[in-house]
């Protein structure tokens, strides 16, 4: 589904050039569950942002189902993010003014769904992440784990091809983190492609494939579940 070739990303900080990705090649097949691991500053988030169409590579190619994402215009990238990608962030990124239901509806608004359809789908998604009773709560009225589940429901709104999660359990304690991971497991079992950045080896163990980064390069790529 995804094929990246010799991907590079260089940030320019004044005089200095910071190579965040130094030539990464990777194939991801439909239905995979990948953990991206590595020390801080090794380029994990940079890769996720490029995979999700939030950022553009400096060099190299990124093919998504044969489309060259690197050549997309801003508007095409927006369409790509809306249709193909679901993001889950470490800090949830829910809009504080909106209820859980409205937060989940947001991507569907940009997709042009009718209010009736998207409300029904948002409610269904919240049910699925176990928050059927919290639809009218605002983010501040929800626990961290609940907020992250709302965010996951939102990421699924437009039926993405791939879910990208950058340290989704980073802000959660162990037990609520486990709830979120159980949800990922379930989604992957349902056929969703999943890429999760994590620092936690236990979280990485749950994935079916582990890609390790160091200094902007892939240093190992192991398959098979250890747990």
């Amino acid at each position, binding site marked *: 589904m995804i094929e990246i070739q010799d991907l590079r990303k260089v940030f320019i900080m004044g005089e200095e050039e910071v190579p965040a990705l130094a030539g990464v090649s990777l194939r991801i097949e439909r239905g995979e569950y990948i953990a991206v691991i590595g020390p801080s500053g090794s380029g994990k988030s940079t890769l996720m942002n490029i995979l*999700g169409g*939030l950022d553009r590579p400096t060099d190299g190619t990124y093919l998504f189902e044969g489309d060259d994402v690197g050549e997309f215009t*801003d508007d095409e990238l927006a369409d790509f993010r809306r249709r193909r990608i679901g*993001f889950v962030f470490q800090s949830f*990124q829910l809009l504080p003014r909106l209820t859980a239901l409205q937060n989940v509806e*947001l*991507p569907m*608004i940009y997709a042009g769904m009718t209010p009736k359809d998207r409300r029904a789908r948002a409610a269904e998604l919240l049910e699925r992440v176990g928050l059927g009773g919290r639809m009218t709560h605002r983010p501040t009225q929800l626990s961290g784990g609940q907020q992250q589940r709302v965010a996951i429901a*939102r990421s699924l709104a437009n039926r993405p091809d791939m879910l990208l999660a950058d340290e989704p359990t980073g802000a959660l304690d162990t037990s609520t983190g486990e709830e979120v991971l159980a949800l990922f497991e379930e989604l992957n079992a349902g056929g969703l492609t999943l890429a999760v950045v994590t620092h936690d080896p236990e979280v990485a163990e749950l994935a079916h494939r582990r890609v390790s980064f160091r200094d902007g390069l892939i240093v190992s790529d192991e398959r098979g579940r250890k747990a």
Partner: protein
Amino acid sequence: MRSFELVRFALGAIIAHPMRSVLTSLGVVIGVAAVVMMTSIGLGAQQRVTQAISGLGSNLIIVTPNFQRGPVAQAAGAGVSLRDGDAVAIARQVEGVAAVAPLVRGQAQLASDGANWNTQIQGVTPDYLVARDLKIASGRMFDENEARQGRKVLVVGPTVAKELWGDSDPIGRRVRVRTVPFEVIGVLESKGQAGFGQDQDDVVLGPLSAVRSRIAGRRSRGDSVQTIYVKAVDEDSLDRVQEDVTNLLRDQHKIRQGEDDDFQTQNMASILEASQAAVGTFTVLLAAVAGVSLVVGGVGIMNIMLVAVTERTREIGLRMAVGAKRSHILIQFALESVALSLVGGLIGLTIGVLGAFAIAKLGEWPAAVPPWAGPLALGFSVVVGLVFGAYPSWRAARLDPIEALRRE
């Protein structure tokens, strides 16, 4: 996406901070209220002026002496150049004339039954009523014979009647004008208050010759008049009659080619036009000054919109991450700015209209909110919102989604 969703986003953000939104739009409120009030006052003034001038009579040409004229006129007699003969000549020789009314006037003390009243006395011919569109309410106007003979009879205005005799019938009363006794034979219909604080009903009319010889100043020669009113039969012939009158009087006064007139003619229609234009210019000026506060209001909106973009940077990043295009962000913030301005415009319009009526009530001024005030005020609000919301919205749309999401 559906466009009404963008409107909903914009309104949602405004409703989220009602107090802040109202305060932000205050500048536009004041600007729009001021523009509406100023144009309403201006239009009221225009109507007032129109009323006052057309109250003088329709299709009217006013002929007055021109004192600026050279030695010939002065030699002829102390700045007086119009005579009875001129009026007669106009009536006989100019076509399309409905009435010609020569007039002399003076200020006089009236005394009757112990009451006193100082007013303007006008010496006229019966045609004066026709020329000035005046009507008799009770009694009668003096006729040609009485006028020629200089009979000491008077037709009084309603104000004079009221001041001297209260509610009782003035007809047949004796009244002393200075020391000369006159008899009241008629009362004029009320013309009401005209513009410029003038009471058109505070007047008495007497036969031209009687008033000229006994009341109007010593300086006046036996046949001089101060004004000749010429009423044209219709509006279309007004200009032509004015020209004919001018030519005839130049002839009468033996003014050679190249010499200036010793009289001037004013056409009611052109006076009206000129004064309306003057008031109109004044109104535009006032409205423009008021419009400056609209600009100040716009700057206030721009300021708060820039704050909003900074505050909601993460929201913008998130919207982009879930698939919003830059144009969606741009339009959302532009609509927010327009909505803020429009709220101000609506409040300002309400205040402006109420204010115009309040001023009208206090100043006994006709309230005249022009019908285009509403659309104009709201149109201006939209423009102000668009212009001053453009830069903040552009800033929002240009944000980098990753950096925006990372912002605290």
